[in-house]
């Protein structure tokens, strides 16, 4: 199909590629890479290791400052995605690049629409999409609007988009971040089928378990350089993690059994009629002081709504919520915080911090009106700075200065600012939503330690996550939410597998109501 490809040589590769940005940051340093035709190559590395920048150069979104990109056995100059696509390179971005109001088929053909003389033949588009889906085993509904289909189908749409352009190299950037275990398995099956058909696949990830499952070989990047390439069969998660961070580091958490010391949170029969999004129905559970309760579920099944109700951002239609014995009905957000609630929101860019304000200011937003930070209604800048410097040190926030705007920090450090603020308020109950999303392995490890320490210091933690590995590693007890109801409750997480929890997330299995509410004391609505 692509006449421009040589008979031999790597499907995609790099020769001494370096990328230096205008501000002097060297994102990629002297990378040499050869990926032969028909291989699934995983590229792993921490955030900021240069994986994304390297992929952008393969896809023409960035141009190397020096060195060469190879496609189809020959050095190429990729002026933009159009020229990469023309050479048979396709990319599925981490943030899916779909037009929400378009149908699946319209998204698949976008940019290369069938039809003559400036017209778009929508019927042909739907037929092409259906045929491609059939051939590749990536099931989609061509005529459904993208904003109305599941995340899994959106991702399959992205891959079909790439296939429709006749790609021979498929770049998948963190494709499993938003998928359930079952969807991940389906994706892997489809990717293997594509490989067997001669496709070369670059699989970007930091989930080492998945990398071991899907890839033929693994290339590890660290601080912009390629540190090495190994056969997957020779690699262990531990050895890969060590290569990624340059030292021995594991995500295994040593957990002493929880020491429960009373009740942090009681939720009884909470109903919530959502104007948009997911409504909640009959939610009831406890979080004890000194334990971590995990909340699993496919995203969009009511986790966001529940977290925002607990944080006081939304009001439940009915039901009772008590934090350490105090009813929260009628309290505003500040009242919820005074009752002892800390909240790490799932979308830190939108709700977690004021991005254009300094680290110091972000660290005092919940306590700026109290001594020692303020006196007689006036802020004391020196105290604010000292407070920030203390937390920057305690939480190992990597920044030159407390006056740096939060926007300038990496994802992991941004999250540390928020976690530092919430945990230093010594909450009775911490609601932590997607606390490690998009942060690197070092920061992840750090968050795990801090959540564990907060638990051991007697806080109750409600950990909401899309990452089952994380939930199973951290949670003392686990709840599963589906369609706004609790469908499972595991009071002992040892021996629980991701696959088994996945069945409850998908609704294949469920616990009965009595099991979920067993042992919950009655609480009067206040």
């Amino acid at each position, binding site marked *: 199909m692509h006449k421009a490809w040589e008979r031999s040589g790597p499907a995609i590769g790099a020769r001494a590629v370096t990328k230096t940005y205008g501000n002097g940051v060297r994102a990629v340093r002297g990378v040499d890479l050869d990926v032969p035709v028909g291989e699934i190559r995983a590229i792993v590395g921490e955030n900021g290791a240069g994986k994304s920048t390297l992929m952008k150069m393969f896809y023409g979104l960035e141009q190397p400052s020096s060195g060469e990109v190879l496609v189809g056995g020959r050095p190429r100059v990729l002026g933009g995605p159009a020229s990469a696509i023309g050479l048979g390179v396709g990319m599925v971005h981490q943030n899916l690049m779909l037009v929400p*109001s378009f149908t699946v088929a319209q998204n698949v053909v976008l940019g290369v629409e069938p039809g003559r003389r*400036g017209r778009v033949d929508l019927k042909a588009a739907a037929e092409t999409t259906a045929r491609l889906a059939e051939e590749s085993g990536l099931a989609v509904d061509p005529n459904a609007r993208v904003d109305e289909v599941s995340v899994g189908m959106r991702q399959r749409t992205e891959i079909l988009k790439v296939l429709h352009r006749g790609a021979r190299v498929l770049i998948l950037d963190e494709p499993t971040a938003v998928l359930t275990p079952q969807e991940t398995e389906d994706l892997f099956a489809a990717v293997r089928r594509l490989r067997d058909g001669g496709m070369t696949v670059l699989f970007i990830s930091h989930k080492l378990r998945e990398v071991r499952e899907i890839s033929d070989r693994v290339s590890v990047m660290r601080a912009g350089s390629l540190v090495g390439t190994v056969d997957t069969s020779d690699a262990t998660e531990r050895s890969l993690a060590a290569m990624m961070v340059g030292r021995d580091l594991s995500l295994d958490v040593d957990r002493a059994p929880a020491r429960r010391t009373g009740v942090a949170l009681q939720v009884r029969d909470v109903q919530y009629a959502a104007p948009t999004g997911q409504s909640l129905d009959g939610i009831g559970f406890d979080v004890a002081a000194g334990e971590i309760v995990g909340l699993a579920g496919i995203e969009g099944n009511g986790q966001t709504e529940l977290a925002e109700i607990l944080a006081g*951002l939304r009001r439940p239609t009915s039901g009772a919520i008590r934090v350490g014995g105090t009813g929260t009905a009628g309290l505003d957000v500040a009242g919820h915080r005074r009752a002892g609630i800390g909240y790490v929101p799932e979308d830190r860019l939108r709700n977690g911090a004021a991005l254009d304000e300094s680290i110091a200011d972000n660290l005092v937003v919940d306590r700026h009106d109290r001594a020692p930070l303020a006196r007689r209604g006036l802020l004391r800048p020196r105290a604010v700075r000292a407070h920030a410097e203390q937390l920057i040190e305690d939480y190992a926030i990597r920044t030159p200065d407390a006056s740096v705007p939060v926007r300038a920090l990496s994802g992991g450090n941004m999250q540390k600012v928020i976690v530092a603020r919430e945990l230093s308020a010594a909450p009775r109950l911490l609601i932590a939503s997607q606390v490690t999303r998009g942060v690197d392995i070092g920061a992840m490890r750090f968050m795990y330690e801090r959540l564990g320490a907060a638990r051991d210091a007697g806080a109750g933690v409600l950990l909401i996550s899309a990452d089952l590995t994380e939930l199973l590693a951290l949670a003392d007890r686990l709840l599963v939410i589906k369609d706004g109801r609790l469908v499972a409750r595991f009071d002992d997480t040892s021996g629980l597998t991701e696959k088994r929890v996945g069945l409850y997330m998908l609704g294949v299995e469920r616990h009965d109501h009595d099991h979920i509410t067993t042992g919950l004391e009655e609480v009067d609505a206040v």
Partner: protein
Amino acid sequence: MSAVLDVVLSSAFLAAVLRVSTPYLLAAFGGLVAERAGVSNIALEGQMLSAACTGALVAGYSGSVALGALCGVGVATLLGLLLAALRLELGADVIIAGIGLNLLASGGTAYAVFTLLDDKGGTSGLKSGSLPAVPLPGIDSIPLLGDVISGQNMVTWLAFLTAPVIAWLFYRARFGFHLRAVGEMPDAAASVGIPVRRVQYTGLALSGALAGLAGVFLSMGYVSFFVRDMTAGRGFIALAAVFLGGLRPWGVFLAALGFGAAEALAVQLGTLDVPPQLVSTIPYAMTLVALAVYAWRRRRQAGVEVAASV
């Protein structure tokens, strides 16, 4: 009250609605194209005004109505491209840039007219003529229908033709397909190799051209001279029609027609014994009411409930 009903039900009123709606329709479609390309065209008003002024002046001096109209539309197109350049090349806030262009147009047209004609009010001293009306032989003898649609200005015909053309462009043509993708998800469009900026420039040029045609109609169809600030907020009302119409071609069509009807009503009621100051507020009052209704409906559909502070 019956006097009002007589006015509203007359064929003269229906003909007036078509005539008065013309600038609203064209400007609203201009606004719609820009909005769907992802760059709000706040400068519709200024583009209309510049086109109206340029059209009247060029037609008056050259003696060619066609050349005047062409130059008017051309100037508005250039203003559309200028807005795009300010936004896309220099990163200007699109609202501020739009307001700037509107002020520039208001002051610039008044200055040009005063410099050339030594008249602070307008170009009534200049004989510039107007774009031709289209009589429909055969149809003009049909009662009612003939009175309403025959003899309308050619720009009115163009305005009503624009609706199906825009609908076709948006949903059947490759360009509209790309335009909607660019406006909704520029990153997605760029990632499949669609030249995002070129599409946005084209959209803004088209937007300016449509606003220009609306302006040319005001000074060379509605009347045959330019008056200072003669657009009188029609560009902003058209912008309201864009949102009221839900960013959809036929919705925008109906909204613009509604605003046209309101203005026509104001004009017709002016002949009756109603305070003219009150009557002339009808289009603006209707805009406010319509936007309030729109906001209320939107909040009911998509409002995220956030508990109010106690």
